[in-house]
């Protein structure tokens, strides 16, 4: 027990805390400037000086740890003078332009000056001038106002791990500058903005429109851009979002956000938001009333079911919609229309990956906590860049490195480039080869004795490639050896699986290898999830063979349960998956479809095929917030409310249930669940729902995993898996690995002049939604083709050139960007920009084992675009 006295008050603790923390415990406030949450103390501003008995000089309370018997004074005359002096020093060169500063009202310098007062202006020497720059699309830098607390730099280095800004110059000429000069050209997480105590780094989005007292209302909600599910606060005035800030006290993100979460909120107010329900009349979509749209939809669906049977109807759900929305869609499709044909874009990667791993190890195997990654001593990543797909999870991986842990990335290291020791980047298509070698080595070195005979048998059946083969696909023996050696040593490893493990073939084998690696290492698994609620969409039964809570359709008992509450029966037999639905529409077996918050025309490869399939439907209804490529083909379009306009729940990639809260209501859209409930009602459903909570109540009654979870209780840490209900036990039994015993093939290289195309995930954009965000478009406005510089050169192309990419399936135009992280002969394009999306110009087949997307037709030619 340590006992100290601060200003005559006794403080007792059993931990070695700083004087600052000890003072806080007894309510003594010591002013600080350079101290900030989550940052280690810097001791540089000298604002927090205190007197310690027997020490001749004042000491900084933020850095000095207490020791037993210490006597501290925080309010002596000398200390008051020292505080005043620090403020005076900070103000002599400060522009004192508070009336035009966005920080006014929440500026620490302003507050402290008011409190401790600075000496009257006795500085006669002329203020220095420092740069003020507006060139950046989202960040305004005013170095006149900077107090050099370095909170921004330390945030960028120590928390974000981006190392994008630094103090330049020395002494009184010091200032903060991005390494790239005027523009930040960084990860644009804006976390430096939350760290800046004054108005030196501010958001351009609310420049001159923000003052703390302008805020009329604020709500705590969950970010709608990716599957991490960061907690953030929407600050609003007159129904528009003025600013998004993180909440340092709540949420799994402890105050961190990424560019999408912080700046990408403005799509909700885009002028192209749908404003009214639309019905196609004489080939044109025309505005109609809500009643008409609902009645019309109900009537058409009823007719078509009557004519063709429930099996002719299909629904596509969405990982961007809430659990309640998805639940209601599956209720419509299954229990009102009598069809199990319900699926979502989760089919493309996330669902097959997670369900395969769950088949290996049981339900919830990927339900691990993101903040826990930071406690790991090593992270193994394959199949995608966590720093761009799930940025805040990505920075947790960086923090492992920061603490001395190891990071391994199979494939392009991307945002983890500074955190790895060796590249394990391989030729396109050689992932399984590399993974097999690593797994085999680790298995051998660990002397692992498995308790799972099925996995054990499969492990021994693996054919291990020799080093020669690996060298031929571009991986160095040194890197492989290092990886195997270090992996074996890990005590608390994490394995992260991204979409590329499945999207380009070898899906079941890759997943088996990674699952088995995690098993042998005794690690924790994470599967990257690009949309905020893909997991929830699955949990809500938006999958042809699985019902709410994850029960297989075949389970009779569940059917009874459903009948009891909803008065309707679960249809028999497994329904069609996403691809089968498209085929069905093409062949004529599917006649009607309801698409909620999804854009299959843009998001499923082979645009022409998908488009023509949807055109053949007798009836297509779409609910969305924009008139997407898919919505523009519909017979009825419902304007939905956007993320910021909704209440409900999301389930993130950790399976944490979190509550979304309604902020603005700028559109006339309605929540999807409400639209769907109205349609159900018009079709004879008995239940009525007063609000989203009543929908949740029904879910928690029906789903065994969610049973008993109360809507109101989903606050703070959210609902962490398992929710108190019962997770399903692992399905004991064998599972299939395609090509288990085959030696992985050396990939065939594209012939010269041709390049293999893959999908890029930009940090700035969340698939295609973010193209409606002016802020994010300001940062990244054009499609980019990332390509290996040697390959670009061999094609006679150079950086920043506009190029045309042509495949068997279509063409796209993009700006060429040389990227040394790309293997030779490979280029990447994102699926973000209208008319130039990656998926529109590739084809697909279906993985026979996983029933997932297998992208094909990736060989492309790249040529300089003709001058416009």
């Amino acid at each position, binding site marked *: 027990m340590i006992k100290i006295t601060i200003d005559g008050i006794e403080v007792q603790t059993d931990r070695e805390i700083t004087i600052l923390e000890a003072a806080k415990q007894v309510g003594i406030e010591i002013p600080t400037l350079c101290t900030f949450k989550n940052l280690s103390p810097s001791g*540089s501003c000298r604002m927090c000086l205190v007197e310690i008995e027997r020490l001749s000089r004042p000491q900084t309370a933020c850095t000095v740890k207490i020791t037993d018997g210490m006597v501290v004074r925080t309010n002596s005359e000398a200390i008051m003078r020292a505080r005043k002096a620090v403020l005076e*020093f900070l103000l*002599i060169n400060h522009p004192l332009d508070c009336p035009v500063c966005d920080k006014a009202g929440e500026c620490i310098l302003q507050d402290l000056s008011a409190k401790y007062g600075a000496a009257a202006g006795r500085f006669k*020497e002329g203020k220095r001038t420092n740069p003020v720059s507006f060139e950046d699309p989202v960040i305004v830098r005013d170095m006149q106002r900077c*107090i*050099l607390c370095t909170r921004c730099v330390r945030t960028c280095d120590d928390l974000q791990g981006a190392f994008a800004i630094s103090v330049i110059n*020395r*002494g009184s000429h010091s200032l903060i500058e991005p390494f790239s000069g005027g523009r930040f050209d960084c990860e644009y997480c804006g976390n430096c903005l939350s760290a800046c105590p004054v108005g030196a780094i501010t958001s351009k989005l609310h420049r001159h429109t923000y003052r703390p007292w302008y805020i009329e209302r604020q709500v705590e909600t969950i970010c709608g851009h990716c599957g991490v599910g960061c907690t953030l606060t929407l600050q609003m005035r007159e129904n528009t979002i003025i600013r998004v800030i993180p909440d340092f006290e709540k949420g799994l993100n402890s105050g961190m956000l990424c560019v999408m979460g912080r700046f990408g909120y403005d799509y909700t107010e885009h002028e192209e938001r749908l404003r009214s329900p639309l019905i196609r009349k004489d080939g044109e979509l025309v505005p109609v009333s809500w009643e008409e749209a609902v009645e019309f939809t109900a009537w058409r669906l009823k007719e078509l079911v009557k004519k063709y049977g429930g099996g002719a109807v299909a629904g596509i759900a969405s990982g961007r919609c809430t659990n309640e929305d998805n639940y209601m869609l599956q209720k419509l499709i299954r229990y009102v229309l009598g069809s199990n044909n319900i699926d979502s874009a989760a089919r493309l990667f996330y669902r097959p990956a997670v369900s395969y791993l769950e088949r290996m190890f049981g339900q919830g195997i990927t339900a691990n906590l993101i903040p826990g990654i930071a406690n790991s001593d090593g992270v193994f990543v394959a199949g995608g860049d966590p720093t761009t797909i799930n940025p805040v999870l990505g920075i947790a991986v960086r923090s492992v490195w920061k603490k001395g842990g190891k990071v391994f990335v199979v494939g392009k290291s991307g945002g983890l480039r500074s955190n790895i020791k060796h590249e394990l980047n391989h030729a396109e298509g050689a992932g399984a080869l590399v993974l097999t070698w690593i797994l085999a080595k680790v298995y051998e070195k660990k002397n692992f004795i498995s308790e799972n005979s099925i996995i054990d048998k499969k492990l021994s059946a693996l054919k291990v490639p020799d080093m020669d083969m690996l060298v031929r696909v571009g991986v160095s023996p040194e890197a492989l050896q290092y990886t195997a050696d270090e992996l074996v040593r890990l005590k608390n490893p994490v394995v992260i699986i991204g979409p590329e493990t499945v999207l380009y073939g070898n899906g079941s084998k890759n997943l088996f290898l990674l699952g088995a690696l995690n098993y042998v290492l005794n690690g924790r698994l994470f599967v990257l999830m690009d949309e905020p609620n893909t997991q929830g969409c699955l949990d809500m039964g938006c999958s042809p063979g699985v019902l709410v809570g994850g029960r297989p359709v075949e389970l009779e008992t569940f059917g009874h349960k459903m009948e009891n509450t909803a008065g309707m029966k679960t249809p028999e037999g497994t329904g069609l998956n996403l691809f089968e639905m498209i085929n069905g529409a093409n062949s004529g077996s599917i006649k009607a479809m309801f698409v909620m918050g999804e854009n299959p025309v843009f998001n499923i490869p082979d645009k022409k095929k998908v488009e023509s399939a949807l055109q053949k439907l007798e009836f297509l209804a779409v609910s969305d917030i924009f008139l997407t490529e898919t919505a523009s083909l519909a017979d009825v379009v419902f304007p939905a409310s956007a993320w910021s306009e909704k209440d409900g729940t999301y389930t993130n990639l950790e399976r944490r249930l979190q509550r979304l809260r309604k902020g603005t209501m700028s559109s006339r859209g309605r929540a999807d669940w409400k639209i769907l409930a109205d349609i159900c009602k018009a079709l004879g459903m008995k239940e009525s729902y007063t609000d989203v909570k009543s929908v949740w109540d029904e879910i928690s009654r029906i789903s065994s995993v969610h049973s008993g979870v109360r809507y109101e209780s989903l606050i703070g840490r959210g609902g962490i898996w398992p929710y108190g209900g019962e997770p399903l036990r692992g399905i004991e039994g064998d599972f299939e690995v395609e090509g288990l015993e085959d030696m992985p093939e050396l990939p065939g290289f594209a012939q010269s002049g041709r390049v293999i195309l893959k999908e890029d995930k930009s940090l700035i954009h969340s698939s295609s939604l973010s193209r409606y965000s002016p802020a994010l478009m300001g940062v990244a406005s054009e499609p980019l083709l990332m390509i290996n510089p040697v390959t670009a050169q061999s094609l006679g192309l150079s950086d920043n050139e506009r190029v045309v990419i042509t495949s068997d399936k279509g063409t796209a135009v993009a700006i060429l960007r040389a990227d040394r992280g790309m293997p030779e002969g490979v280029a990447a394009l994102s699926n973000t920009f209208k008319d130039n999306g990656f998926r529109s110009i590739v084809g697909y087949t279906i993985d026979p084992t996983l029933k997932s997307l297998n992208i094909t037709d990736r060989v492309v030619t790249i040529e300089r675009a003709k001058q416009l």
Partner: protein
Amino acid sequence: MDERIILRNTDDPLNASIAGYMAHGGYKALEQAVGELTPRDIIDEIKSSGLRGRGGAGFPTGMKWQFASLDPKFPKYLVCNADEGEPGTFKDRPILEHNPHLLIEGMIISAYALQSTRGYIYLRGEYPHAKRVLERAIEEALASGYLGNDILSKHFRFNLTVHSGAGAYICGEETALLDSLEGRRGLPRLKPPFPVNSGLWGKPTIVNNVETFANIPYIVSQGAKAYASIGVKDCPGPKLFSVSGRVNKPGVYELPMGISLREIIYTHCGGIKGGGSLKGVIPGGISTPIIAPENIDCPMDFVHLPKYGSMLGSGAVMVFDDTVCIVRVYERAMKFFEHESCGKCTPCREGTAWMRAILGRIERGDASERDLETLQDVAENVTGKTFCPLGDGAAGVLLAAMKTYREEFEYHIKNKRCKVQ
């Protein structure tokens, strides 16, 4: 026979080569250390010798080594601070240029005592000649088996690299030096942890001054007792003084610790140039408070100078006679501090610039009584409140000068010109 220890044989141009150095008995101490002594023995010997660091703070070297040696972490790093940036200081230079093997031998013995395998010499950027000399000497030592992976066939490994600084004074401060060595912007680090526990790349690290290392071979070969008999109790040994300013024979002098300032000036340096009268002496570099003429009998060592309100610092003696304007001296000094302030902490960053501006106006005859008050107040607001000793020293030396030479400052204000001239 050369009686000196540190500058021994530096008049012999061949001494910088390993052959010349060995001809004078060089590397015997190393052979003795590695052959006969355990690392512990050496640390104990250094401790009982009473050697204090020559970089400025005078910290007991043996104690520092013991702290590092007790830390269980490995590798341990050994760093020689050869940044020599303190204005007026040029005492490490003759060692670096004319006695490089003495430094290297001292470092190898330290490495052996600390079980360090990697050493760096952080060299002042403006010493390109010393760089060439050192690099050649390191190569020679490697070739002779005194450095490398199997020193003296004793399975003892130690390698040494010279790293040139980029000219920032603050990089002479040991933790800023380590930042700079790691390839970052050199800024003083928070202490604790101290370098002995968490230094270069977070590993236990010893940082010692060039002159400190140069004392090691003597202590090892002649014993702590012999060493302790030189100089004064609590601060023994030989000391290099770099004397500049208004004396007849400026230069680097090796004299025993505790010698008086008067002896240095009048006995060794030939007295005041041009026969003028002494106005004041800065005893240990610009960061140490000035000493008035009436105090020049003070013994020059780490123990006694504080009693005269000053410090030994780097032992850079700067002598001013009555042709020198004290206001000018401190305006110039403050320019240096302003320029060299790293900018990390508020009082030093803002205060040095402000003080320099006011001093400039006083010097130019463009200031009032109020300005003198403000200057005093600003300096008081800086002293004792900065992150590292640089800012503290900047304000401290000004306050001392303003106290002793107040009428000179006042003269500037009243008469709008300098008293001297």
